[in-house]
C-alpha cells in the first residue's frame, strides 16, 4: 500500500548513475554539490546509485576521451530500458576546448545518444537542477536559437534600387 502511495506521489523518481568520461572534476564537484542539503535534489526523488544496472539516468561529464569510450558504451548498455542520458558541462556538448583534439571523440553524443544537455563550464548547481526539472516537466525550456540581422541599408545597394525605381516611374508615366 505504501509502495502504491509512493508511486502516486513520486511517479518519476530518477535514479542517477554518475559517469565521468575524462572530465576535469569541475562538473563532478557540481554534481555532488547538487546532493547537499542546500540544493536538495532528493525532494524530486533523485538519488545517486553506484551501478548502471540500478539507474534510469546516466549523467555524463567530460568530453569522452579515447580510453573511456568503450567503458562509457558498456555502462550505457548495462542500463535497463527506458533510459535517459544527461550531458553535464560544455565538454559533453561538443568537446569544449578540445573539440578538435585527437584524443577526444568530440562530445558525449558521439559515443551514446544524449537526451539533455546542460551547458556551463562547470554548470551552476542550479543549472543542473534546471536540466533535471526540464526533463521532469516542471519548468519550461528557455534556450532557443537566436538570429540577429542588421536591418540598416547598405547605402550603394539602396541607391541602385532607388535609381531603378526612378527609371521605372518614367516608364509607367509613358504607358
Amino acid at each position, binding site marked *: 500500500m505504501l509502495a502504491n502511495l509512493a508511486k502516486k506521489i513520486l511517479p518519476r523518481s530518477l535514479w542517477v548513475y554518475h559517469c565521468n568520461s575524462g572530465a576535469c572534476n569541475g562538473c563532478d564537484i557540481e554534481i555532488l554539490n547538487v546532493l547537499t542539503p542546500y540544493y536538495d535534489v532528493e525532494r524530486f526523488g533523485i538519488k545517486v546509485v553506484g551501478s548502471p544496472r540500478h539507474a534510469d539516468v546516466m549523467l555524463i561529464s567530460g568530453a569522452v576521451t579515447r580510453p573511456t569510450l568503450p567503458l562509457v558504451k558498456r555502462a550505457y548498455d548495462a542500463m535497463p530500458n527506458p533510459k535517459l542520458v544527461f550531458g553535464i558541462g560544455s565538454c559533453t556538448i561538443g568537446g569544449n576546448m578540445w*573539440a578538435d583534439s585527437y584524443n577526444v571523440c568530440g562530445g558525449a553524443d558521439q559515443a551514446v545518444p544524449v537526451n539533455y*544537455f*546542460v*551547458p*556551463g563550464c562547470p554548470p551552476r548547481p*542550479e543549472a543542473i537542477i534546471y536540466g533535471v526539472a526540464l526533463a521532469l516537466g516542471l519548468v519550461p525550456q528557455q534556450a*532557443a*536559437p537566436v538570429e540577429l540581422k542588421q536591418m540598416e541599408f547598405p547605402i550603394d545597394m539602396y541607391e541602385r534600387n532607388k535609381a531603378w525605381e526612378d527609371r521605372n516611374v518614367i516608364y509607367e508615366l509613358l504607358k
Partner: protein
Amino acid sequence: MWLTSKIKQVLLVIKPGTVTLPYPFEPHPVPEGYRGQPSWDHHKCIGCGGCAAHCPARTIFIRDLCQDLRVMVYDGGRCTYCGRCADVCPEKAITMTKNYELATGSKKDLCTTMELFMATCNRCGRCYEMETKNAIDRMNLKGYRYDNLEMRAVLPVCTEQFDTGMLAKSDRFKRPERIGE
C-alpha cells in the same frame, strides 16, 4: 540513549530552519560578476572578428557570404563562458548576461547567428582588410593611402586572393625612373 540524541538532533535542526533552496519553483539570483550566456548587440557590432580570434574554445565562426555581407555564428554549446570575447570587443557589443538556465535537448538551441553589413572603402568600393589577427599586426599593415600608387596594385581584391608574397614584393618595389622600364 539513542532517543535523547535524536531529540537533541531535532532541536539542533530547528534552530537554523530550512536551508534548502526552493530553486526550480522560485528564481535564485546569481552573485555579482557572474558570467552567463554572452549576448551580441548587432547594432553595435562592426564585424572586426576580434571575438573569433580570441575565443579559446573557438566557438565563434566568421563567413563572408559576399563582398558586404558577413555572417557570424556563435556555437554556444562549447562555450566556456570565460568572457574573453566581451573583453576584447572594441565596441562593447558583447555582454555577459546572467542567464544560466540553458539546459536543452538540442545543441542548435544554443547558437546565435548574426548577419552584418560590412562597410566598403569609399575609394575602391571593396571591403577593408580584416584578416589581420591582432593590433600589432594591424600596425605593421600598410594601410590604403591615395598617394601610395604601388600599394594600389597589391591591394587584395578579396581575402581569399590575398597573398603575403605580394605584400613582401611591394616592399622591394622600385619606382621606374623612365617610362617603359
